[in-house]
């Protein structure tokens, strides 16, 4: 059993090295296919981070009149907090707002000077409302608009939903393009593997005739070609890993600059999920390539 397996692997390696250029082309196409699949994953991670970053920022500011009484504000806050579409409501008093404002502009003496010259606190108390679900964001804005409380000075509904939709649309478009590209590369890989096996069978047709003549089993004749496709996939994934991590290292600083203040670390993501990402790619790739080889072997090994 082990002897036959060892011989099958030996024949398979012989097959790869005897057609070394064909093997290299096959592996390169495989690497390209795997590369596009992994870039797709990168797009997904970046897209998720972008969406997460925006979701974190989404809130509705309800600016209240400066002279609004604390009790009225708390009643309004409780009313809003009772809405199903609301996750939480935060009350920022005039003093807190001033504190935040000062802290924000501590490096800008002109603004601080203007504030001092005014003599009094010009900022209004605010209710910061976090929505429970983005899908019900418009329902929430409608409901808040319907509040006709006299202490409400103004309302600020930035159109985050539109922004999110745009990001989702861009991510979806990139993902769709990636899926299309990956599909093409996977299809090319299948065709290349199929043809590699076909050529390998043609190269070894004399040997296969002899193997059949002397009583080699069909599985023994066919197995080396199937093993070759697994070896191609293994080498392909290995090359990809060696290429991909340096590429991620190059990409990482740009992403960190872009998503400043947010935790986005592609290298960490690919390190901590390396086994599942590359392992599953090896398994799925091997399975697809074995199938392509099997079809070729069944069709052409009848020498």
């Amino acid at each position, binding site marked *: 059993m082990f002897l036959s397996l060892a011989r099958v692997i030996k024949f398979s390696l012989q097959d790869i090295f005897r057609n070394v250029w064909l093997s290299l082309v096959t592996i390169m196409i495989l690497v390209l296919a795997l590369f596009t699949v992994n870039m797709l994953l990168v797009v997904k991670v970046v897209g998720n981070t972008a969406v997460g970053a925006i979701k974190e920022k989404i809130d509705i500011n309800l600016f209240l009149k400066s002279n609004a009484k604390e009790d009225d504000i708390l009643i309004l806050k409780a009313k809003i907090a009772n809405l199903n579409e609301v996750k939480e409501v935060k009350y920022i008093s005039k003093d807190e707002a001033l504190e935040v404002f000062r802290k924000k502009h501590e490096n800008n003496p002109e603004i601080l000077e203007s504030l001092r010259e005014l003599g009094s606190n010009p900022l209004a108390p605010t209710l910061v409302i976090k929505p429970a679900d983005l899908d019900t964001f418009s329902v929430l804005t409608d409901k808040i608009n319907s509040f006709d409380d006299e202490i409400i000075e103004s309302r600020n509904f930035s159109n985050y939903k539109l922004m999110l939709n745009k990001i989702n649309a861009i991510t979806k478009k990139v993902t769709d393009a990636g899926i299309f590209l990956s599909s093409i590369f996977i299809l090319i890989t299948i065709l290349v593997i199929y043809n590699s096996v076909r050529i390998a069978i043609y190269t070894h047709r004399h*040997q296969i*005739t002899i193997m059949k*003549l*002397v*009583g*080699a*089993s069909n599985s*023994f004749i066919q197995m080396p070609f199937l093993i070759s496709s697994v070896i191609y996939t293994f080498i392909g994934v290995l090359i990809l890993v060696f290429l991909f991590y340096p590429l991620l290292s190059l990409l990482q600083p740009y992403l960190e600059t872009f998503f400043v203040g947010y935790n986005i670390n592609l290298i960490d993501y690919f390190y901590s999920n390396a086994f599942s990402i590359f392992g599953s790619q090896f398994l799925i790739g091997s399975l697809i390539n074995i199938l392509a080889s099997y079809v070729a072997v069944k069709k052409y090994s009848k020498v």
Partner: protein
Amino acid sequence: MIKFHNVSKVYPKSGKALDRINLHIRPGEFVSIVGQSGTGKTTMVKTMIGEEKIDQGKIIIGDWDITDIRQREIPVLRRQIGVIFQDFKLLYKKTLFENVAFAMQVCGGSPKKIRKIVPHVMKIVGLESKMDRYPEEISGGEQQRVAIARALVHRPKILLADEPTGNLDSLNANEIIELLLRINRFGTTVILVTHNREIVNRLKKRVITIDNGSIVSDQEIGKYVL
């Protein structure tokens, strides 16, 4: 040993290759199957090793009815029947030892067994001193002997020789026939498919003559009659 019961085979393009063949070859016999080209001799060989399916009749090898042999059983059959061809079918990048060993390797033979059997069969065919050479370094007759050695590694009960002398001069051809006779004396059933009149007439063994896919003559000590 080998029985053909009313065996017929038709090729869609070229027509009838075998027409109701009835034949019984006993164990240890040396039988020549003769006939002109395209009369069905090679088709008979192919049906015996499971390479061609028959359309009608029954073929029995030993106690095994191979008429409807399954694909996965064919290797088992071929390990019991040694076959040699006119074109030797050797691997030219392998030494003579490796060529013979290859037949055992692909059937799961252990290295120990290979080291024991290959020199033995090479000695039988008289090539024990040339085992490290490559096929291109030896004569056609010697190449055919390597093919015979390879056919013998599984200790077959039947040796099918399909035009084994077709590519050889008369001297080498005679040596091959002598070798086949020697193998037959060890108890192996030898079936020689040929259209070499001179060889058949000199053998003074059983001769089955085929014409148009039918047996037209079967003589215990026969001659080439066509």
